[in-house]
């Protein structure tokens, strides 16, 4: 093993890691925030909202995430919208991830027993209030495992950003491998960094799950 290829390039790898964290964190927050209204629209009584959310869900999940990234980076300039690499990567990844997240949220909302919704209506509780205080806390317990699983995929998938000129962890590692011809050392470090980052995500999931757990 020749660990100097790692220590000698620690600065580059650290900078790339920060980019990965920034892109993943922004995308996670935005895609979850965007997914909630989309999930509600998908089952709305208002037909146009339902159709819009349906088309969103279908197209964003049907198209390769890479194609969405390229659309954001190379396609939007055609419309006069110029995004820097990082915002373009965040945009592409968010649009794609929200399509998946909305379906997880929708499933969780549907899994809350019908009687809970009826109880809210019978008590005269307006839907937004019922959703926030009574339905979502129950849906969260169902939502968290699959949603967090998707967010770990998203964190690793942020490597796609390297293809729109973002200097993130996987891309930087590939570049260093071609420079140094020492793939093993570099890939071990990259794997450990992803492990640690996803470890944080899993820890957050556990914390949030505890928040919504019912007492014994």
């Amino acid at each position, binding site marked *: 093993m020749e660990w100097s290829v790692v220590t000698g390039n620690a600065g580059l790898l650290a900078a790339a890691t920060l980019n990965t964290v920034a892109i993943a964190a922004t995308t996670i927050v935005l895609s979850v925030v965007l997914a909630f209204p989309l999930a509600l629209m998908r089952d709305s009584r208002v037909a146009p909202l339902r159709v819009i959310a349906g088309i969103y869900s279908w197209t964003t999940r049907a198209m390769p995430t890479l194609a969405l990234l390229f659309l954001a980076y190379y396609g939007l300039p055609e419309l006069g919208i110029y995004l820097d690499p990082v915002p373009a990567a965040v945009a592409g990844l968010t649009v794609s991830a929200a399509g998946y997240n909305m379906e997880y949220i929708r499933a969780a909302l549907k899994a809350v027993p019908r009687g809970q919704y*009826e109880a809210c*209506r019978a*008590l005269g509780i*307006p839907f937004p209030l019922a959703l926030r205080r009574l339905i979502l806390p129950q849906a969260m317990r169902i939502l968290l495992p699959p949603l967090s699983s998707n967010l770990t995929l998203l964190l690793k998938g942020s490597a796609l950003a390297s293809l729109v000129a973002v200097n993130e962890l996987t891309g930087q590692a590939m570049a260093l491998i071609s420079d140094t011809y020492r793939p093993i050392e570099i890939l071990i470090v990259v794997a450990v960094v992803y492990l640690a980052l996803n470890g944080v995500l899993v820890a957050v999931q556990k914390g949030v799950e505890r928040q919504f757990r019912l007492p014994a």
Partner: protein
Amino acid sequence: MEPAEARRPPAILEVHGVVKRLGGVEVLKGINFTVAEGSVFAIIGASGSGKSTLLRCLNMLVVPDDGEIVWKGQRVGWTKKGPAWVRQKERELLAYRREVGMVFQSFNLFPQMTAMENIIEAPVQVLKRPRDEVVAEARVLLDKVRLSHRSSAYPHQMSGGEQQRVAIARALAMKPKALLFDEVTSALDPELKGEVLTVMRDLADEGLTMILVSHEMGFVRGVADEVLFMHKGVMCERGRPEEVLRAPRTPELQTFLQRVVD
């Protein structure tokens, strides 16, 4: 008409020609009745007779396709705009539902909340009443349903009978003018039915207007002022329980009573 009509207190709820179709099937085929203020009105019938759908129409959880429901002289679910009647949106129905509460067969307590939190949720969050005041009232209600000691228990820590009594207290916390009971003892073990029925008897004695769908013939006979027997979406018989249950005129009710004899 029956001479009894004259002596009755005025109707708080009137149901005129209510029709409901579900999946192409007419499950309610023109229902008419009135409920006097402070009375107990029981709806009985075999499963599939439409009685639960009828009860849900009364608080608009299910919107009738035809006919009308009149609450204290006001048409429910419709607003008059100029010469035309316009259907109310879900949001506008909420005020009515706060006056006509409902208790469900499956309790439907909020699982993440204690008994106390379940009871105070709507008065505090919807009516925006001061929390201390609502908590004090909730304690009185818990006492009324004989659950003072269970105030900090979660639904899954309680028996079905306890959960149902909390659900009754939760409905009462909104100070409804009437309560709908949808087979509230059907999901309970026989030994737990009694404690719920006792609470309901107390409420009837206090003069709460109650409309219930029930299979508890003993309770209906003892507490109801009026009974409606439904069969396949049609009102088959209606009258005072001692008459209707003791001397059924239709073969449908005779068969039904033989089956549920208790």
